[in-house]
Each structure stands twice: as structure tokens, then as C-alpha cells.
């Protein structure tokens, strides 16, 4: 019991740290694409420390505080279900549907908090976020169906194990289509550029985040870091073959090796998201919904049909 708690804590610590590094990488790579130097990689950590050490905190009531905690909790819970190499704690129960929906719940938590603030910008952002959430369900659902159909199981860990013998998911034609669709969906889940309508800096002044400040924003930064880690990890697990290394005799070496391999795959997923985010302008909300119900849905549905044949 105690060991499990310690392990959960270590996973959380690792996820937060790597998530913040990811945020730093996003800023640096975006800067390099713009031919800027960009901040140091640890800049998001400094930002978060600054936010958490603000003296004044504005609150608009219980739900306003609770929504943030709810978002953070849901992200951490999602993280616990995803197998991280060989060290996850709840991987036996981590099925695709559960993780997919736990990864979307944080958005709902932020919505709660934003709506209770009473700011019209936040309300506007919340509406857009909910519509985006609705739009990505369709390709996401087809993606899960295709995966479950192909591997005959919903368990993420079993899918990872199956890829150890059968090769990565993206090497199979139906799952490649699904992976492309999922990657487009990932763009909205990260809140990156073509589909960052719900945040929309400059257009609706940060949308749901407009009213947050101080510790609320700090916790949201941490939540965003963990969410980045969890979403890239989930993608790497189900499409890029995860990592279960058994080459070494020592279990510690095995763990480190699998974490390193996973990290490389996660960064690869992240890079695509950054590139797409840096070169494409923002969609309006109706364009985004139409896009998600068109191309990713067609791709994912084709993948699901091919997988079922």
C-alpha cells in the first residue's frame, strides 16, 4: 500500500517535471521557427512559481476553486491509468475509453470554474471549448473502436504488449489512418494553434482563463503540464508501441531505458503538434467543428472499417 503511494507520487513528480520541460520545448521550438531565441527551457517552472507566490488571489465562490482542483485531479487520475513503461499503478484497469474520457474531463473542470466567474469572455471561451470537445468526440470514438477491433481488447497495457510482438500500431494500414486522425484530435486536446479556439489569445483574451490569476493559474499551469505529459504518453502507448524494455537484468535499468524510449516518442508526438501549431492559423469555431466532423472522422471511420474486415 505504502509502496503504491510512493510510486504514485514518483510518477506524478516525473510527469510534472517532464510536462514543464515539454512546455519549455514548445516555447523554444516555436521561437526557433520564428527565428527567435526563445526563453530558457525551465521558463514555465519559473512562471508557475511566480504565479503560485502571488499575494492576492481572487475567488468567485466554491465552484470557482473546485473546478480547478477537479481539473487537476482528473488529469492526475488519467495519468495513473496510463502505463508508463513497466511502472504504472492502475494499468490493469486502464482501458481506452476510461483514459480518453479522463483526459477530456479537465476541460470540463476549467469550464466549471470559468463559467462561475461570470466573465462574458470566459463564458464565450467555455462555449467554444465545449463545442470543440463535442467535435472531437466523433473521430475519437472511431479511433477507439478501430483500436479495440484491431487488438480485440480495450486494455491499454495489453495493446502495448501486443505491439511488442506485432510491431507498432502505425505500421498497420487501418491504424495508421486512425493515428493521423487521433493526432489531429490531439491538437485540440493540447490547445495548440489551429484548434485553440477555446483559449484564443488575442481574440477573446484567453477565453476561460481570462479570470484566473495567482494560485488558480498556477495550478492550471501544473494541470497543463501533466495533461501534456499524459496525452503524449497515451498516444505513444497506443500508436507508437509504448515501451516495455526487458533487455537488461536489473529492473531499475529496464525502467530507465523504457522511460527514455517513451520520452523520445513523446517528444516526437509533441514536435508534430508544435510544427502544426506554429504554421497554421486559428480556425473559427464553425470551421473547426466542420473540419473535425469531416477529415478526421472519415480517416478514423475508414480505419475502423478496415480494422473490422
Amino acid at each position, binding site marked *: 500500500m505504502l509502496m503504491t503511494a510512493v510510486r504514485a507520487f514518483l510518477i506524478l513528480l516525473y510527469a510534472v517535471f517532464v510536462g514543464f520541460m515539454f512546455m519549455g520545448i514548445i516555447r523554444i*521550438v516555436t521561437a*526557433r*521557427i*520564428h*527565428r*527567435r*531565441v526563445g526563453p530558457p527551457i525551465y521558463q514555465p517552472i519559473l512562471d508557475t512559481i511566480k504565479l503560485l507566490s502571488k499575494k492576492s488571489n481572487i475567488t468567485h465562490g466554491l465552484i470557482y476553486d473546485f473546478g480547478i482542483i477537479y481539473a487537476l485531479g482528473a488529469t492526475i487520475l488519467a495519468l495513473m491509468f496510463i502505463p508508463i513503461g513497466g511502472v504504472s499503478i492502475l494499468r490493469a484497469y486502464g482501458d481506452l475509453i476510461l483514459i480518453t474520457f479522463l483526459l477530456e474531463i479537465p476541460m470540463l473542470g476549467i469550464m466549471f470554474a470559468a463559467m462561475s466567474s461570470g466573465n462574458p469572455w470566459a463564458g464565450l471561451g467555455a462555449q467554444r471549448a465545449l463545442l470543440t470537445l463535442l467535435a472531437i468526440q466523433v473521430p475519437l470514438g472511431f479511433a477507439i473502436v478501430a483500436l479495440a477491433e484491431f487488438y480485440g481488447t480495450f486494455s491499454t497495457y495489453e495493446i502495448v504488449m501486443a505491439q511488442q510482438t506485432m510491431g507498432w500500431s502505425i505500421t498497420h494500414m487501418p491504424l495508421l489512418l486512425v493515428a493521423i486522425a487521433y493526432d489531429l484530435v490531439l491538437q485540440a486536446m493540447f490547445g495548440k494553434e489551429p484548434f485553440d479556439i477555446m483559449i484564443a489569445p488575442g481574440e477573446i483574451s484567453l477565453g476561460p482563463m481570462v479570470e484566473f490569476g495567482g494560485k488558480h493559474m498556477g495550478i492550471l499551469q501544473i494541470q497543463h503540464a501533466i495533461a501534456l505529459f499524459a496525452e503524449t504518453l497515451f498516444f505513444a502507448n497506443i500508436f507508437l508501441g509504448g515501451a516495455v524494455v526487458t533487455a537488461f537484468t536489473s529492473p531499475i535499468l529496464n525502467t530507465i531505458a523504457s522511460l527514455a524510449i517513451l520520452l523520445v516518442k513523446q517528444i516526437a508526438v509533441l514536435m508534430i503538434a508544435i510544427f502544426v501549431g*506554429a*504554421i497554421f492559423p486559428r480556425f473559427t469555431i464553425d470551421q473547426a467543428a466542420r473540419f473535425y466532423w469531416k477529415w478526421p472522422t472519415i480517416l478514423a471511420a475508414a480505419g475502423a472499417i478496415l480494422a473490422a474486415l
Partner: protein
Amino acid sequence: MEEIDFKVAPESKIKKRPSYIKPWLGLKYLFKKPVTIKIPYEKTQIAKNYRGFHSLDWKKCIGCNFCGQICPARAIEMTWIEVDGKVEKRPHPKIDYGRCTFCEFCVDVCPTGALGFVENFMLTTEWKDEELELFDWVPIHPDKLREINEKFPDYRFPVGKIEFNKETKEVTYYLRDGDVFKFKILGYGVRPPAAAKPKPAAPKAEEAKKVKKPEEKKGQKSEENSS
């Protein structure tokens, strides 16, 4: 009336087809060197004759107040000055950088070429009153400015600190290379103040006057303001 042909580019030549592929060309700068000047570590090259802070040759200035008249921001006020116990015969311009727009019209209009400018442009202070004194100065000699610029080529204001003693009206410039430059402000405006009228024949009389000075100055200032 003859017909005029306007050349209008056809729309088919201007309009481009949207593409999902072409934006990826934007990634070509990813591995190129960033075009950034890392300011604290690298220096910027300032253009020659960049319009910066002023310099004033006190020997050349004849106190004609042309600069004060042309200044669009009214940042220039003539000042009567006493250096080393000797009253300057003519008033010198005192420039308020809180208002100055750095158009350098004053330099162009100066008939004797006493006012000049250097390329320095950096002047940053905190909110404290004693630091804000820096923004209000009688410019110093151009040679001295150049000398400081050679020592500190960072385009900062050549004076580190200006102290203004309200009772004795004594101004002290602590220049950046360590020199101290002191003078007294006897009064403002084009007309000479009472303290400046008698030529400093006897230093004793000068000293006796110093005690009375504050009231005199106040009286005169209010006169000038009201007029």
C-alpha cells in the same frame, strides 16, 4: 477627352489557392541561426548622428534663447548659472528630458553651434525623486561627453547622478567616469536674476548675498510665471 487606360492586375494573378501543404515551408527557419541581438551580451550598432542627448559648449552659448523658442515641447528653459563663484554672463539652456522629443530642432537653430548632440539614448531611473533629477540638466561640454563615451560605449546617459540642493541652489553632476562637476543655479528665464546682475567684484559681497538668495529667487520666479 481621350480615354485613359488604367492598368489593373487581373484577379486570377493575385489570388492564390489555399493549401494544406505550403504552410510547411514555414519550418525552413527551424535550424537557422536566430536573428536576435542578445542585448545584455551583444552590442547594438547605433547609427552615426543618432539623435540622442544634448551637449552644450558653455563658452560658445550666447543665451539667445532661440532653442527655447523653437522647442516644440517647451522642454528648454534658460538658466542663469554660477560656476566656481563666477556668474556666467549669459543664460544657458536647461533641457527637461521628461518633455524633450529629441527632434534636435534646437541644435539646428543654434546660431553659434553651441548646442550639439551625441548618440547616447539610454536613460533609465527608478521612481525615486532624487533619481528623477537626472532628467533635467544643463548639458555638458561635447569633448567631455565624447571622453565618457569612449570609456563606456553603452550609450547611457553620461551623468550617473545629479544632486540638487534646494537651499543653496547648488547642482552637482556625478559623471560616470568619477568626475564631479558643480555649479549653482541663480535663476531662470531670459532676464538676469537679481543675484546675477552685480558682477562678482568682491567675493565677500557675493557670500553675503547667498543668505538672502532663496527669497529673492522665489519672488522672481513667481513674477516670471505670472507674466
